[in-house]
């Protein structure tokens, strides 16, 4: 599949995509290939620190994120798939840009210059502003007739220090609409899924998750579409409704529409099986 027109981008999958959300990882790689982007995994990347390091120990959180930043080769952007990881890496990048003492400490430790110009991009960036007619030309399967609600979770929110970063509001709707699907409006698009409280306060998260999925059903959706693997897991694991509707990764749906056929291993990993729906909509056989 390699060709000279492919653009190389360094790729940080993060712990979730490397393990529990492999279907997100695989479909993202396929999707990027269709878009002419070759993802090269960041060599020996480590956990971004996640929420836990951020809560318990800021020094370790910065150590962990900084190691990834120093590992990233210069000259090409660093693509991050997980909204939590990208927040940690961008915050660390900003902190090192602003704090000379810390920057110097890490430069000494890793024996190389801090790359202040490193672009840390979400995969939305690859789609944002892209000529959709080109995308349309590549469309192999139309998403016609698929009604979905976009679920961004907390990925549209961020601390004040990063307020100037792009927010990509409406991007999933725009792209999927151009491929034939129909977005529905609903009130829970940016309601947080609860992240780690899913483990420590399951009752509270079950209430929240049920409210989100019921909201999608009431809106008349066939499925939810999310761009966060953590959200995906919580929506699947903590929903106690009798007949929940499936949640699809944005990358899965986009790959399907772009004609990727290697999806055997994706949908079988969902706790709420999306295959009956996808078959009904003639998206898979």
């Amino acid at each position: 599949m390699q060709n000279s027109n492919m653009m190389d981008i360094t790729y940080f999958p993060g712990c979730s995509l490397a393990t529990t959300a492999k279907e997100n990882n695989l479909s993202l790689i396929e999707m990027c290939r269709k878009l002419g982007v070759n993802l090269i995994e960041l060599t020996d990347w480590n956990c971004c620190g996640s929420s836990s390091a951020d809560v318990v120990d800021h020094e370790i959180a910065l150590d962990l994120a900084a190691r990834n930043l120093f590992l990233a080769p210069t000259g090409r952007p660093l693509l991050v798939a997980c909204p939590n990881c990208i927040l940690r890496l961008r915050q660390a990048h900003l902190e090192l840009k602003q704090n000379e003492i810390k920057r110097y400490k890490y430069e000494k430790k890793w024996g190389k210059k801090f790359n202040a110009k490193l672009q840390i991009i979400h995969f939305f960036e690859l789609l944002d502003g892209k000529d959709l007619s080109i995308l349309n030309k590549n469309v192999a399967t139309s998403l016609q007739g698929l009604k979905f609600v976009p679920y961004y979770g907390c990925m549209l929110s961020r601390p004040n220090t990063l307020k100037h970063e792009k927010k990509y509001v409406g991007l999933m709707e725009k792209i999927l609409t151009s491929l034939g699907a129909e977005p529905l409006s609903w009130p829970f698009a940016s309601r947080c899924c609860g992240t780690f409280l899913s483990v420590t306060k399951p009752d509270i998260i079950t209430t929240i998750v049920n409210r989100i999925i019921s909201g999608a059903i009431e809106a008349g959706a066939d499925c939810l579409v999310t761009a966060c693997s953590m959200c995906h897991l919580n929506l699947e694991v903590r929903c106690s409704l009798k007949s929940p509707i499936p949640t699809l990764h944005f990358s899965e749906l986009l790959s399907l529409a772009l004609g990727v056929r290697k999806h055997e291993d994706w949908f079988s990993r969902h706790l709420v099986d999306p295959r009956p729906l996808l078959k009904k909509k003639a998206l898979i056989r």
Partner: protein
Amino acid sequence: MNTPSAKIEKKIQLGSKFAREVKERSGTDFNSCYHCQSCACGCPFSEAMDFLPNRVIRLVQLGLKEEALQCSSIWVCVGCNTCSIQCPNGVDISAITHTLCQIAIEAKGTVAEPDILKFHREVLNTIHRYGRTHKLEVMLRYKLHKRDWFSDMGVGMKMFTKRKLELLPSRVQHMNDIKDFFKQRKTG
């Protein structure tokens, strides 16, 4: 020296010192908060909190160290930033709650949500061991701590059959880098 006014004076000084520490470590000026409660209205988890987010800020503004460090809200906050984006003054509220958690850990006092802290420690433990998180191990160790093997058995089995819980962790090769981070720290 031990007159009532001297005692109050001492209390005020300690309170100010605490507020200053939170401000410096969080990098956030919480004094611009005028308690419009946008954060409290937006927070998806306020029902699980003993103090609403703006109330936590109030505790810090008033220098009420013990109350701020011992409240449950600082642990319940997941850092989703829903509050920050709604705050008209751009106060980074999760930076404050996370800073309070860290000060509470260092103070070794009462933690209102020991289970949440335990969970975070188990996540960090797997990072310490493998450089990446290992969900199965985090869950098993957390369940061991809770002595609760049954509540999530169904979910666990489902995840297992769907291959969502990996038996073996994904690992970093240069583990010395990672071990090094944890060497100097006492919070792990």
